[in-house]
């Protein structure tokens, strides 16, 4: 297993257990699973083989959510349209219950995310799970920076011209 550079760590991990910080950190991880590819998540799960016995509390299933927007961008909500979502829940023998909800229809990806969520909840494995997602974090950062650069290059300054009749 290739070790990752030490400078990329999860800043949300508190030394003293703090439920609010722990939930925030878990949300950050879930955001990473959602933006990872199936292959990336499966590779991350591979690091923890052999896995404890797995109980599929909720086998991965596809469904819909209604995406809401807000009138005027910041006002009363309205129903914009639906999106496909896949969810799964697994329990590791002697461990926590992992849950995943992800955009799209990919049962294998949802199951991998739920396994990682279960592993992450084990304080002893938390750092290792965080570390296993480093390639994802890095790819997303690079892509976001590239996109921001490309967008920035299209920034314009309009100059109003004096009209002929003036």
């Amino acid at each position: 297993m290739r070790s990752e550079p030490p400078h990329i760590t999860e800043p949300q991990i508190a030394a003293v257990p703090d439920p609010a910080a722990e939930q925030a950190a878990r949300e950050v991880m879930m955001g990473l699973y959602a933006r990872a590819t199936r292959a990336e998540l499966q590779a991350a799960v591979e690091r923890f083989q052999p896995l404890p016995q797995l109980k599929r509390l909720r086998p991965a299933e596809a469904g819909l959510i209604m995406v809401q927007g807000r009138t005027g961008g910041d006002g009363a909500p309205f129903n914009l349209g639906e999106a496909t979502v896949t969810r799964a829940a697994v329990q590791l023998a002697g461990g926590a219950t992992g849950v995943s909800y992800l955009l799209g229809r990919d049962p294998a990806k949802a199951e991998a995310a739920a396994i990682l969520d279960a592993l992450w909840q084990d304080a002893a494995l938390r750092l290792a799970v965080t570390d296993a997602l480093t390639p994802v974090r890095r790819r997303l950062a690079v892509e976001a920076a590239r996109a921001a650069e490309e967008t920035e290059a299209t920034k314009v300054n309009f100059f109003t011209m004096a009209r002929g009749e003036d």
Partner: protein
Amino acid sequence: MYVAVKGGEAAIRNAHALLAKKRRGEESVPEIGLDQIAGQLSLAVDRVMAEGSLYDRELAALAIKQARGDLIEAIFLARAFRTTLPRFGASVPVDTGAMRIERRISATFKDLPGGQVLGPTFDYTHRLMDERLATHASDADAPRQLAPSPRAGEGWGKGEERREADATPAAPMPRVTDLLGGEGLIEPSPADDGTPPRDLTREPLSFPADRPLRLQALARGDEGFLLALGYSTQRGYARTHPFVGEIRFGTVEVSLPVEELGFAVPLGDIAVTECQSVNQFKGSATEPPQFTRGYGLVFGQSERKAMSMALVDRALRFKELGEEKSAPSQDEEFVLSHCDNVQATGFVEHLKLPHYVDFQAELDLIRRMRAEAEAPDEMKEAAE
């Protein structure tokens, strides 16, 4: 009325086989892949997601392929597919203020915080056919290579590590409406009082429709229909004097409150286009004149649709703003009952189904009327 008919199974089977053959096209040409449709016909995919009211790029690409590029048929397929899935809940309303911007322009302010960002736009192209695209030569010499970024000394040759270091989230771009709102010159958005919005996929459309319900119908409405209605408002039918305060396109995070977890789970990002129109004034005895607003929000990149939606949203607010009703774009029953292209195509296209009994009755009727009209006068008199 149409009636059940029997028979024709073999003909139908053969018609569908022929459809599949036509869909495939010339067999010596490679079959098109969903990744090609999603990646290279992305605006068609966006339209199917918006009007199919179902955000899933891969499904929309599949629908386009299956429909041979007929987008309304593809939208129909997306709508049919959604009925096969359970619904897990409603998202936290997306925050377009926190959008990761790919395009953001304002027609009202030249200089605004965050700037004017053109992004991938057809604007300012010359609409000349590009022969290079016909020959695949575009791969070699099309201007896909961006010129160096305007930031001095920072070219495109940045190393990956440098990009990683830069990857702090960009500051959110303030909405133009917030800039005007700060001075009280523009009406605020209607407040969120915690009422869940009505959902026309769960209850039939009924009138009067409140603004959230209207926005849902418009967001999935036909682009062409809304474009024409929006255009009509500009040409004087319910004139509302619009300016485009802002158009922004980019990605927003979607999250879902999950009861078993007690918090909202981030599900990933979706692309949306938002348009804020700024329209002429409203004032009353108690309130000074203010700019009014129309709003458009659409899945994917479609500013034509988002702008049309904002124009029609504003026109539909005539009553609330004390304006006279004078045009179709203001009539919510007319607009909302006809903007759905799946419903519209269903009713128009049902005319081709067998209407044999109806038509026999009409034939019979017209024959009798003609017979009466052609009968000699004395017979008519005798009959009377």
